[in-house]
């Protein structure tokens, strides 16, 4: 039986190299017991390799993996109290659904395995198809069987490898909610590997963003979104407008930044003490159209402390919930604006507009990083998914 005292999953200095390619590079990670943890990153970032090392399907080249105070690095997959929901589900085609679910219990000679398997199937609402074979099930059903087959063993850690990747969008949304409910019901540690940032944010308590074998940032979804610490995170999770800025002065909790000759403000606590050059970031939905140039603040949203930018609308697309604008700034940079469909007067293509945002919605990123890092990865992945 599972020890209820077993604790957090810890990776210390884990590195995995395949011949000349380093898939995972010096990874240190603590995943608290009972949390819903997402490993998020583009394809090839090392997230699946990390998961396979935790499962015992791959061996780390260097480093240790711990569950609680037990070093499991050297143990084989079948000796670990860790179960995986495989991307392809990997259901045994020759066994019935209930035999698939009972497979792990029977290997451990758990008494009453059939009843426990049926209970797990009830949890995923599939008890009525227990006697069928996997080949007779739809993708969504197979996915839930794979989940039941893993959960029934009450593992210390449950690994999910892009578990919803093969489902269509509607089913995926539904399964996201179901998975989250099941996780809070059974209270197991879930480690969810995905390239879908929306899926990760919807489901996980904590997200670790990986890129090129390294961790970019580990935080809860809101912090990741509102306060990204790297250009990669800023672009990979949602969209960001990054403006080249330098610090002019710091006073009274606000710093004045010079952005192409304009003065924009940012709370001082967003800056490191020694920062002089930075990327000033702001999310498209934080920008507001405050009216045509010189017309004053027609929408009444403006506070005098707001940052102001002016530009020309070069594209406007109405999506129902919002209108997405592309606005060209005087120095040629194009930025994205998402204006909620809240009655704000729309701007036509070619119109001169003033944009405003509250300084506290800005964030600062290291100026030495590539302003486009992560943007392409996200575009590729969402296209493929």
């Amino acid at each position, binding site marked *: 039986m599972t020890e209820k005292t077993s604790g957090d999953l810890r990776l210390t200095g884990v590195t995995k190299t395949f011949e000349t390619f380093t898939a995972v590079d010096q990874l240190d990670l603590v995943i608290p017991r009972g949390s819903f943890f997402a490993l998020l990153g583009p394809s090839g970032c090392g997230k699946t390799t990390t998961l396979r090392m935790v*499962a015992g399907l791959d061996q780390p080249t260097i480093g240790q993996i711990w569950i609680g105070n037990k070093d499991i690095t050297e143990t084989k*997959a*079948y000796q670990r109290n*860790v179960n*995986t929901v495989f991307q392809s589900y*990997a259901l045994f085609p020759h066994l019935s659904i209930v035999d698939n679910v009972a497979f792990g219990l029977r*290997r451990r000679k758990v008494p009453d395995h059939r009843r426990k398997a049926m209970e797990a199937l009830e949890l995923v609402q599939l008890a009525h198809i227990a006697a069928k074979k996997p*080949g007779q099930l739809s993708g969504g059903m197979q996915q839930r069987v794979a989940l039941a087959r893993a959960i029934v063993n009450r593992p210390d850690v449950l690994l999910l490898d892009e578990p919803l990747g093969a489902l269509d969008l509607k089913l995926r949304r539904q399964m996201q909610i179901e998975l989250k409910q099941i996780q809070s019901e059974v209270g197991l540690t879930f480690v969810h590997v995905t390239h879908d940032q929306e899926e990760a944010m919807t489901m996980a308590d904590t997200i670790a963003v990986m890129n090129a074998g390294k961790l970019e940032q580990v935080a809860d979804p809101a912090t990741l979104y509102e306060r990204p610490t790297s250009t990669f995170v800023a672009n990979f999770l949602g969209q960001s407008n990054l403006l080249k800025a330098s610090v002019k002065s710091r006073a009274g909790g606000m710093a004045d930044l010079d952005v192409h000759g304009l003065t924009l403000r940012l709370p001082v606590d967003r800056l490191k003490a020694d920062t002089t050059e930075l990327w000033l970031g702001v999310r498209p939905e934080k920008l507001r159209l405050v009216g045509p140039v010189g017309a004053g603040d027609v929408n009444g949203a403006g506070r005098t402390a707001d940052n102001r930018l002016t530009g020309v609308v070069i594209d406007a697309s109405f999506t129902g919930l919002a209108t997405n604008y592309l606005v060209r700034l005087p120095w040629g940079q194009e930025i994205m604006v998402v204006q909620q469909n809240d009655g704000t007067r729309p701007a036509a293509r070619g119109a001169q507009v003033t944009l405003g945002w509250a300084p506290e919605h800005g964030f600062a990123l290291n100026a030495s990083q590539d302003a486009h890092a992560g943007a392409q990865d996200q575009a590729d992945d969402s296209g493929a998914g």
Partner: protein
Amino acid sequence: MVGQLVEGPVTARLPRRARRNYTPYLLLLPGLAWLVVFFVVPMLSLFSQSLQTGNVETGYVMTWNVQTYVDALSRFWPHFVRSLLFAGTATVLALLLAYPLAYFMAQRSGRWKNILLVLVIAPFFTSFLIRTLAWQTILADTGPVVAFARTIHLTDLLQLLHLTSNDSLMNSPFAVIAGLTYNFLPFMILPLYASLERLDHSLIEAAGDLYANPAQTFWKVTWPLSLPGVVGGTLLTFIPAAGDFINARLLGNTKTVMIGQVIDSEFLRVQDYAVAAALSFVLMLIITAMVAVYVRRAGTEELV
């Protein structure tokens, strides 16, 4: 007006649809004709031959003489038993040799896969007869194989098992079984390879993930999923091996005579066509019955 509009296309389409329905049957016709001429007709002629009396000089007449079957079986039943025993042993040996090989080729060989496949098929480039004759040289008393077998006392072990009668290897049950195993090994490897190649490696990983140690993974996942290959391979090995007459003639002795040899000599040397036909018919019935029982018990229809 409306009626005309509807009627036009329908009458135009009808003959085309009818023609399309016959196409598969037309394509089947040559194969069916072939089977009728070269399988059904000979089978009936063989069956009728087995119930006739007479001899080659005076000709045969149909007498519904069932006594031929009784005589043939009472004279040659040991040869039937021996054939099934030899073929069964060769099949089991071939399975034991082929399974690890096919598994390696299918799951682990990477870029060597195609080269290994060619090597498995390569023996077919020479004749069956030549390859079996080569075994006479391989197992010859003066050859290195016998010398090595004597050194490790394999010859003693084989004598103990009554697979040889002295300290050589040739002209013995052992040589016949070895020849059968060798000759039909590719027929075992290829179906096994085909079913193991289809085996999704993530299923093996999933079994390990669900606490199955390597042995349990094999017996609970790999083996059941490879059963179609096992059934196919054992049938393709056992059936021709049971009727084989080349290996026993070239590698055996007078005490290793298999039923294929008997049928061969009854037809061509003794020229007792009735007995030869009866023996052929019985051999076919035995094999069909065994295969039917075996396939049903292996339950291949249950597998994907």
